């Protein structure tokens, strides 16, 4: 578990730990590159909870390490408070049932979100688009 053994995996873990809501996706929220990622972004935006986003496409190792960490084979992957919530299907189901707003802590009136600094220190390989 040395921090230097796998810096990419460490970066992913750190990003998940630092961002209360973080979506690993293909493309970016403004330019999703896959229908499942696009739908998940649309749902998060509809719920109104700001989220951080990581594009897994620039380097295939991001997806490989992420799936190794999460034991989840597909993209997108939504994490809330460090826990994997699921992919597009689960997010869609939870949105339709109202559970997603509850999980995201935005039941009722839109919550006022504190402005947070971008979580990642400078430098690749992970790039986070911070939507907070």
């Amino acid at each position, binding site marked *: 578990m040395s921090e230097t053994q796998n810096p990419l995996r460490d970066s992913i873990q750190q990003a998940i730990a630092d961002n209360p809501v973080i979506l690993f996706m293909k493309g970016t929220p403004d330019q999703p590159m896959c229908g*499942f990622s696009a739908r998940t972004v649309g749902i998060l935006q509809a719920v109104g909870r700001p989220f951080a986003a990581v594009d897994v496409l620039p380097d295939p190792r991001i997806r490989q390490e992420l799936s190794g960490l999460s034991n*989840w*084979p*597909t993209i997108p992957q939504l994490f809330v408070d460090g826990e*994997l919530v*699921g992919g*597009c*299907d689960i997010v869609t*189901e*939870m949105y339709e049932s109202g559970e997603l707003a509850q999980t995201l802590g935005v039941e009722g009136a839109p919550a006022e979100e504190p402005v947070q600094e971008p979580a990642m220190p400078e430098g690749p390989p992970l790039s986070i688009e911070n939507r907070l």
Partner: protein
Amino acid sequence: MVLFAGAAEPNHYAVVMAQSVPAPGPATPEELKARIEAGIPGAQAMVSGDGHHFDAVVVAPAFTGLSRIARHRLVYDVFGDELGGRIHALSIQTRED
């Protein structure tokens, strides 16, 4: 197939199985249905798809008490590395009973 009391889900039985073997050629809804039903005890699956993108509705008593994440993992585990490759995308809905 082996049933054992899983450490990760202490109150439930986890299902462990060898990943099933893909049929030769492109994936078909019929193949996915058969493999899901063979891989998850008591499962019934409805699968549609175009050879790359598939939609599966899976009903199985094995899902009872499991989280959505755990249910989806049971289905994903049937296909292993084929997901994202031979099976480009698989949308899953799960129901118990």
